[in-house]
């Protein structure tokens, strides 16, 4: 027998790839706002699946599992960006405790644009909490912070978003 007669079991990552690729990429692209970063993180997500599939008890590969990995890759990306941002002055504080209500009709496109201008930690917290709709406890787990620290971070992030959004309203 020749090599082509080896058992042709399809690799689970290869099997799910055509279906999962647009989903993973579609999750990452609007959240990271950069085509090249989205491609890098999409590739990292699938290579992580290849590695996980080699473990003794591999996970059941589903699109949902891959999206969960992609979310971790996104958070890791923002963590790296956050480290690079350090030293660069990023306007973050200033609005704590100020009751600055949101308009009754939120312009979501303007809010996404404002979000893209925030610092990496704020962007990451707001994306997980609001774009992905995760409960605060899960956001805290993803960011490796306590729930209390995450609540504080979210409060500050929302204030920063409100400020940038308001600047956009004025233009």
């Amino acid at each position, binding site marked *: *027998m020749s090599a082509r*007669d*080896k058992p042709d079991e399809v690799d689970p990552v290869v099997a799910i790839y055509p279906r999962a690729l*647009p989903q993973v990429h579609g999750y990452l692209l609007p959240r990271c706002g950069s085509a090249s970063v989205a*491609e890098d993180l*999409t590739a990292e997500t*699938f290579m992580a699946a290849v590695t996980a599939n080699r473990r003794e008890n591999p996970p059941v590969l589903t699109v949902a599992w891959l999206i969960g990995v992609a979310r971790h890759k996104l958070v890791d990306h923002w963590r790296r960006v956050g480290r690079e941002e350090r030293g660069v002055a990023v306007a973050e504080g200033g609005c704590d405790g100020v009751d600055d209500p949101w308009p009754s009709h939120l312009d979501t496109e303007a809010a996404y644009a404002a979000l893209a201008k925030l610092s990496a930690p704020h962007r990451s917290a707001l994306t997980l*909490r*609001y774009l992905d709709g995760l409960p605060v406890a899960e956001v805290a787990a993803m960011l490796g912070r306590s729930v209390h620290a995450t609540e504080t971070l979210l409060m500050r992030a*929302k204030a920063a978003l409100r400020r940038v959004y308001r600047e956009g309203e004025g233009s």
Partner: protein
Amino acid sequence: MSDPIDPLDHLRLPIVPVEPRAGFAAALLRRIEDQEEPASPRGATVRYFVDDLDAAVDFYRDLLGFEEELRPSPAFAMLYRGDLRLLLSVPGEPHAMPDGTFPEPGGWNRISLHVAELDAIVADLRDRGARFRNDISVGVGVRQVLVLDPAGNLIELFEPLAGYHERATSPVR
């Protein structure tokens, strides 16, 4: 936990599938395929008893495409074919049952190997001196044939027909 009137709840962004560039998609698929392992330790292990270890190893390796992994003694060998691990043992004292009987080759149970182009493979094996127990027959969802190893153990070779079923992936291993 969540404030029901939080205005930012409107920012929820459902996942809309977006096809990436075709070149990127193809390159990533190649990367994934390149990482595939040729064999993994997750498959089944089967033990066959044989009377002539050398003849049996030659048969499984040269005719059926097994890879010889170990032959630590004249009475034992370990071979692989993909996920399947095949142990070949020459019956001896360690295998004796309390009632004094020894295992022996043969019987009707067999491993079943999925092959492509069954006719060509059977013709090739016949040319190379393999012994068959029957001719190719049509079963439910498969065409199959029984080949004998030198000790008389059966190996079933099959190729799928319409209606053939196999679990696409193996979530539980």
